[in-house]
């Protein structure tokens, strides 16, 4: 199924089908009431199947991640993944500035050293997940982020377990990151466990 089709569109379509069937049932002069009831019933059954189907699809469909920044807590970009090419964007600098902004907010508003977890814009959100030596920031423009939040936490924990010992006081050698892609691609595909 095409993920780009909006769930709203599908609902409107199934309403139309129901409408058409209902109209047929009432307008067409059937011989007896039983046939009419049969048609109305058929319409109702079809629509419930439809609605149940869409609901299942909607529940199962992953939140679509537009971009992911995998960073060290000091603001160095480890990996960047994106669905769209953005030629004007410098991902390294953006990762640094994103970290600087977090530092600023943290130091300005939070006494106890809490962490910024979310930045919301009108059209998209940035979710941030932290561990000792890793920060993941995911940019999403779809709704329904609860599952993503859980997945991001799991990924952060797994990356910490696997790469934490190399990334604490990381010397900056990119070859320490072999294997990160396997984990991150799974997250991007919305299939992280």
């Amino acid at each position, binding site marked *: 199924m095409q993920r780009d089709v909006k769930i709203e569109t599908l609902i409107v379509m199934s309403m139309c089908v129901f409408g058409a069937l209902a109209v047929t049932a009432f307008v067409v002069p059937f011989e007896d009431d039983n046939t009419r009831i049969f048609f109305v019933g058929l319409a109702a059954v079809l629509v419930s199947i439809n609605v149940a189907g869409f609901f299942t699809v909607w529940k199962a469909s992953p939140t679509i991640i537009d971009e992911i920044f995998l960073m060290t807590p000091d603001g160095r970009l480890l990996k960047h993944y994106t669905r769209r090419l953005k030629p004007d964007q410098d991902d390294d600098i953006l990762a640094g500035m994103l970290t*600087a902004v977090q*530092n600023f907010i943290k130091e300005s508003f939070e006494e106890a050293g809490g962490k910024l977890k979310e930045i919301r814009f009108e059209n998209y959100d940035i979710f941030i997940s932290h561990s000792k030596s890793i920060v993941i920031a995911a940019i999403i423009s779809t709704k329904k982020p609860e599952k993503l939040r859980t997945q991001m936490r799991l990924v952060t924990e797994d990356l910490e377990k696997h790469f934490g010992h190399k990334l604490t006081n990381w010397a900056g050698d*990119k070859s320490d990151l072999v294997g990160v892609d396997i984990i991150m691609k799974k997250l991007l595909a919305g299939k992280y466990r």
Partner: protein
Amino acid sequence: MELKELLKKVVLLGDGAVGKTSLTARYVVNKFDDKYIATIGTKVSKKDMQLTKPNLIINLRMMIWDILGQKEYSKIRTASLSGAQGVILVGDLARPETVKSLEAFWIPEIEAAVGKVPTVLVGNKCDLADKGSMAITVLESIGQNLGYPTFLASAKTGENVENAFATLGEMLVAEVVASRPKGAEELPQTLSEAVDFIIQDFCAQYGDLEKAMLIVQHQFEEAAVDIRKPSKDAVLQALEGLAKAEELSLTKTVAAVNLEERQRMVILAKG
């Protein structure tokens, strides 16, 4: 020839208006507006450098953090300093007090935050200073005492700007040499080296060294690996056992990633 990609964080520090932002602007291709420094206290830019060593090409990317110079903003500054692997300390040669405060304020502050890291001293605005001025003498003596390379530079004329950054770049990779025995591009050469590396890696990730060694021993016995003269098939079989152990101690995904990495290492090993 080996190729290494390194990513280092460098911070610029010094009193307000000594010319930190102007020096960066001279050296890097700017992307973000300077207004961010006033707004959130920091601007990040980057510069790529290529350095060569025997049998090794290093592509160094320096992320340069220009941090607001006011001494009062110390909390945000400490956060921004975290993880800095190199420092450029800037004083204004036309204002000797800004050079003195390098020693009195900035150097202790950096040492408290990140310890001793490669550092260069820059006396900026040398276009305004006379030769042999007090500021120059003070700066050079600080540099000599601490063993920091010292540059008289000008962001206005461009004199010595590139030089100062390039010197720091070289200091950042001073200890990097070709062919580490581990890593992605330079895999362990022989099968014994690969086995050594895998055992170490397994233990490091497992945490509890003693327990980890017991597991390794057990799995190697099960797979009939002769440690002195290992065969590839036996080692590959032992890897499956280690992966099973990691599925429990770490997670399934991590175990799978490790397994794949180690299998590759063993298959590519000589002997």
